[in-house]
């Protein structure tokens, strides 16, 4: 058995040991279950709020987001071309886009991660 095969066999053994590792005690398992339920409820509340904002109509949500984006674009246009005002530097225009977007700031912080996910999905699909 060469070194690589030897390592692979060792890693497989550790994987099995971890998989079969000591079961969780009842209290820990229960607290994890409670944490999971809290998370699922939080997701439900988020979906409910999103539904409320759009009146339960996904097209309305899209229209609202579109309206915001349009307003943002108009604001950028006014700031860029209004006589007597200096053009907004590109960095500020990007900030305005961030402020008027329906996506959270977290989304922009993780932008490179999403690009990678998308690339990965393209390769897989």
């Amino acid at each position, binding site marked *: 058995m060469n070194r690589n095969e030897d*390592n692979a066999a*060792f*890693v497989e*053994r*550790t*994987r099995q*040991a*971890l*998989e*079969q*590792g*000591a079961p*969780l005690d009842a209290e*820990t398992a229960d*607290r*994890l279950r409670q*944490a*999971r*339920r*809290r*998370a*699922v409820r*939080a*997701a439900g509340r*988020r*979906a409910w709020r*999103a539904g409320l904002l759009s009146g339960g109509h996904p097209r309305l949500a899209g229209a609202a987001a579109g309206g915001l984006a349009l307003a943002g674009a108009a604001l950028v246009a006014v700031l860029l071309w209004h006589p007597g005002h200096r053009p907004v530097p590109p960095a500020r225009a990007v900030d305005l886009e961030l402020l008027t977007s329906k996506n*959270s700031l*977290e989304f922009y912080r*993780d932008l490179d*991660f999403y690009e*990678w*996910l998308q690339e*990965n*999905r393209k390769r*897989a699909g």
Partner: protein
Amino acid sequence: MGAKAPRSGETLDGFLAGAERRAFRMARLATGSREEALDVVQDAMLALARRYADREPAEWGPLFHRILQSRIRDWYRRQQVRRRVFGWLGTTQDEPGDPLEAVADERGAGPAGEHAQGRFAEALERALRRLPLRQQQVFLLRAWEGLDVAETARAMGISEGSVKTHYSRAVHALREQLEEHAP
């Protein structure tokens, strides 16, 4: 995606139920404390649910691991700050470089933890606790979660080259420590 990527149509509850045990054990190995590990996992679950529940189920795995690793790193950094603030060791200067590269968990290395156990799983757990945090988590993500090099790099926010280095060092260190348990 990794070996345990959720299928399309899977519910968030189903995904978290499948991931919570491994996530807890990874966090416990990193923090050495059940309470801290439960907090870390709960935080990661809530963050995934609040921010990304509406994403495709196939994305939950990479997102969850990224959040979990971020929470584990935050926990370690907070511990470091606490240590500096309380400063009972008399060290007030920052260590050069990234402290997470070098930090090793000494829990379980005491005489009581060093008695021969005879069981590979227990010895493995002790050996994993002694690894530097990055080596430990890279090894768990690669060997246990089944993530590939690129996925592990993304989850941990490090380069693919670093993943390969940490993984190789982890395998080497674990083999050395578990030599007496070789089949």
